[in-house]
């Protein structure tokens, strides 16, 4: 379907059909989500990348579409994530209380995504934004904890309202809801205000500090496929808004010469840095694999903010590439953990171990994903991190650089923890017999994502070329790329060469290995135990408090944001309770008193 409008209507209607079918047979309903999201992705990718999407609107009033490289970039990416994750739906549908509604909301969110990215009108954008908020909102409580969705809603709506305020402000100044003209026409102090409001919206959606509080909760407690959707897809809405704010609308303000950037951007970069540090530090100490990845998502959101706030071609293309790389990698990682969760019903690392032996493919998927997340070549994450480092170093942002380095090294720590505690180590007896590899349909998206992780890391040229066309659209100098290399400002990268050398290195090592004497295979329990005899697997499995020594160093300081938000909630509650106590009595004299008071104030005001 080349027409965006038809695509939108198609998605909505299939949502309803999936609901009706799901009423009768939930599994079929969820299979429909695979088909529909596949069609949506295929249409957007095929027609979008050829710039052949039809924007004409004939059935839906008040909605208009536009086809920009930015929209296609995000649309293809997010619909791809939806498509990939939808393969998991049939396997998880039995766990939900409301099976049919799940499919409906899933497709409703997808429809909202199409609307958000492809509209040229801010009001329509907000419409779909809110649509996505509430349709995804009800997906969350199908998982482990219902209260989480309240936090999600709170922060999400806070962000939405910031967006709305920005829209209203822009409209009142420029008189138009049109995104492009609106962003161009707003000027002066209003421009700054719009900028700040847009960025609040972006931060809330992206889960960046200090509006990050919901993200780990939601990603931990939603159903496993939904987690992947959030991390790989919906969170990227924030990135989209951030691009609108940071790149399309550059406020004029105080300019820091030595850093070659605006103060506003620098503050954002610092906030992004805090997000990186916060996410990293928190991820390191989690026991729940999903929560760990959730915090890593937060930290990667910080990278995106930092990258986009740099404003240089290396920075922005790095940020955009990071959006892709992280979407692919984190979706893959969450899906892998989800596959484990489906087989074992837990994601706690302290309860798992040795999954590698029964789920080798899942393990490889996770391994490749974390290599990318940690920014290690030859995976996609390396390219984006390299570009971001280029940008950061060019501007000479010392503190921001420190945070990005910290996050980058810290990511080695936290991604390794599930690897070691969950997949590796001793194979726990309770999983020895019962666990099988995930079903083949679930493996399809995971393998595809893994291949993409590698492709984005080895041959990024096509994507970077597309990002370059996008940069033209955003009025930013293009990144200098050739077929095999990326030319940064202070160095050249040849990802394919790295991959080839790595392959050759591994080949040589393999030759060495194979040409030497064959090893004797021994059991996992047959290990060095310093002359003790240990027969229980748990005692030989190191997974609880993995990073205890380093956690101890910062443990006392981590809860301040949590305390802040809970205090805020309590304050609101206190105000309410106070007024309730003082005004809402069953005694008439109280109200009489207030009436008199109001009259007295008026008289006093008029007399004075």
């Amino acid at each position, binding site marked *: 379907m080349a027409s965006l409008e038809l695509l939108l209507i198609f998605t909505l209607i299939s949502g309803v059909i999936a609901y009706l079918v799901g009423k009768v047979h939930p599994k079929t309903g969820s299979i429909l989500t695979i088909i529909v999201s596949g069609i949506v992705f295929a249409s957007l990718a095929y027609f979008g990348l050829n710039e052949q999407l039809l924007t004409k609107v004939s059935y839906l*009033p*008040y909605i208009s579409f536009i086809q920009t490289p930015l929209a296609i970039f995000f649309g293809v990416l997010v619909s791809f994530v939806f498509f990939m994750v939808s393969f998991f739906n049939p396997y998880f549908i039995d766990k939900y*209380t*409301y099976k049919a509604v799940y499919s409906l909301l899933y497709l409703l969110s997808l429809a909202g995504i199409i609307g958000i990215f492809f509209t040229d009108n801010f*009001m329509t954008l*907000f*419409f*779909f934004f*809110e*649509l996505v*908020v*509430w349709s995804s*909102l*009800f997906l969350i*409580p199908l998982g482990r904890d*219902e*209260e989480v*969705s*309240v936090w999600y*809603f*709170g922060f999400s*709506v*806070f962000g939405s*309202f910031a967006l*709305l*305020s920005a829209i*209203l*402000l822009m*409209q*009142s100044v420029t008189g138009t809801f049109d995104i492009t003209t609106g962003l161009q026409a707003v000027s002066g102090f209003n421009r700054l205000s719009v900028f700040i409001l847009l960025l609040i919206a972006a931060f809330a959606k992206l889960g960046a500090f200090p509006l990050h509080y919901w993200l780990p909760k939601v990603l931990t407690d939603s159903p496993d496929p939904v987690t992947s959707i959030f991390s790989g897809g919906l969170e990227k809405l924030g990135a989209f808004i951030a691009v609108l704010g940071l790149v399309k609308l550059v406020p004029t303000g105080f300019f820091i010469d030595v850093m070659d950037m605006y103060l506003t951007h620098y503050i954002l970069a610092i906030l992004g840095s805090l997000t990186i540090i916060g996410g990293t530090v928190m991820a390191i100490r989690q026991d729940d694999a999903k929560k760990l990845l959730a915090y890593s998502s937060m930290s990667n959101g910080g990278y995106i903010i930092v990258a986009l706030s740099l404003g240089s071609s290396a920075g922005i293309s790095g940020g955009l590439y990071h959006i892709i790389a992280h979407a692919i990698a984190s979706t893959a990682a969450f899906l892998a953990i989800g596959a484990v969760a489906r087989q074992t019903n837990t994601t706690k690392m302290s309860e798992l171990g040795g999954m590698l032996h029964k789920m080798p493919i899942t393990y490889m998927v996770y391994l490749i994903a974390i290599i990318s997340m940690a920014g290690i070549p030859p995976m996609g994450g390396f390219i984006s991190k390299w570009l971001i480092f280029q940008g950061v170093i060019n501007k000479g942002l010392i503190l921001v650089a420190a945070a990005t380095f910290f996050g980058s090294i810290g990511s080695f720590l936290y991604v390794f923890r599930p690897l070691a505690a969950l997949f590796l180590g001793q194979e726990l007896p309770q999983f020895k017999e019962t666990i099988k590899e995930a079903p083949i349909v679930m493996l399809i998206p995971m393998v595809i994502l893994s291949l993409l992780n590698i492709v984005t890391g080895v041959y990024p040229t096509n994507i970077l070329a597309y990002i370059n066309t996008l940069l033209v659209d955003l009025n930013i100098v293009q990144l200098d790329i050739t077929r095999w290399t990326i030319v940064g400002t202070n160095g050249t990268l040849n990802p394919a060469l790295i991959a080839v050398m790595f392959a050759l290195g591994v080949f040589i090592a393999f030759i060495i290995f194979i040409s030497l004497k064959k090893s004797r295979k021994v059991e996992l329990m047959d290990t060095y135990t310093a002359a003790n005899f240990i027969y229980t697997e748990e005692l030989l499995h190191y997974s609880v408090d993995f990073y205890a020594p380093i956690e101890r160093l910062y443990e006392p300081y981590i809860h301040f944001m949590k305390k802040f938000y809970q205090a805020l909630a309590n304050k*609101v*509650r*206190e*105000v*309410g*309770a106070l*007024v*309730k106590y003082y*005004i*809402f*009595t*069953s*005694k*008439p004299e*109280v*109200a*009489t008193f*207030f*009436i008199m008071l*109001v*009259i007295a*104030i*008026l*008289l006093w*005001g*008029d007399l004075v």
Partner: protein
Amino acid sequence: MSIVLLIAVPLFFAFLGIILKKAAPYFLLLVSFFNVLALGFISQGAIVIGGYSSFYGIQLVLNSYSLIGLYVVNTLFFVIVAINCFKHKKLSPILLISLAGLNGLLLTNDLFNLFVFMEIAGISAYLITTTTKDPKSTFNYLVLGTIGSSFYLLGLIILYAMFGVLNIRILGNIIEGVVTNKAAVALPFLFIFIGLGVETKLLPFNSWVKGILGKSNALTGPLVGAVYASAFAFVFGNLLRYLFVFSESLLLIVSILLVATILIGEAMAYASTKVREILLFSSIAQAGVAVLVFALGYYTWGTILIALNGFSKLILYLVVNIAVDQVKSDELSALKGLFVNNKLIGAGFSVATLSILGLPIFAGFIVKMNILVAMANTPKFFFVGVILLASLIEGIYFIKLLINFWFEQDQAPRVKYSYVVIYVTLVIALLITVFGVYLEPLNSIHSTLNLVKGVVMHG
């Protein structure tokens, strides 16, 4: 058909119902249904009772504004009556009187007549609320209601003493034209504001609400929470549109009161753990929003907002009160998982809630957006901020409510809803959704309301 019939027929049957006790509930049902039907045949215009000139006589005005109000009030009333009339047979005449009073409130164009209808509606409300078996709350309601209407009376008498006219529109025009120092009329307007504020549940005049709506049953909850609330909001809107002139200090006080109503109302709802209290405090805030919208002069969208809120609130109060009546508790924890066995009701309730929150594909979104856009263009960003902040808090506790109702921990309460309730809920939910997507009807209402700004003055 004359518009007087809308008031006269209920009154007549009310007295007939006192004589023919057995038939009273049927009268109630028939008359309220008749009123809804009759609205379709009544031509718009103004009439003056007793053939005086409109300067002296009691004028009743039916324009598209009051027509919307009548439709909302009568429809809601009919629905509530249809669900409840055989449970409270004794109340039938009183309900009829209250219907007459409410219709009068919406129709009258005379300040004193408005007072009379206020008292009629009020007294019948006091009597209806005695069904909750809590005389203390009712007494509180009565005292506050009386104080409120006394202040209203005081205000209108002062205005009469100053200008010698009680016709709202004429008075408004005179004040607009004659008074140069707006502060001179600030006091009577404040009295009137207070008087209506008590009924409209504005902070801090609204302490009666907690006793009445916090202990409501399936009759009083929807009636007071949805019907009375929308009727008085319409009246307030009417007065704000045609009569009120704000001096600076009055506007300041009113703004502060309204902002406090909105924000503190939401905060109180947020602080509550009882479902009925959540609903009542949130309706306080919404009343504040409606009055604010009118006070700032966005009459058309304000009207639609009240109408929409009326229908949404009906669902909310109905569903919750029926559940509370059966579960015998209104603690959120006791009602957890309410919708697990009542999915249709749950769907309708969710739609109504999401619409109140102003989330898209529901009508609430359209209304809220239009109000906010109008505010931003005036520009009144402070109030935009207030409404958004209020919506945020509102969203949080309503979503908490919904999530609690949809997902149970161990044992979901068993609540039976009659088919009438289910149908009503679904139909209203469907309408809310349809109006949220298909914008033509709302826009046409918007434009007709805009057209009739110049009002019929002669009768």
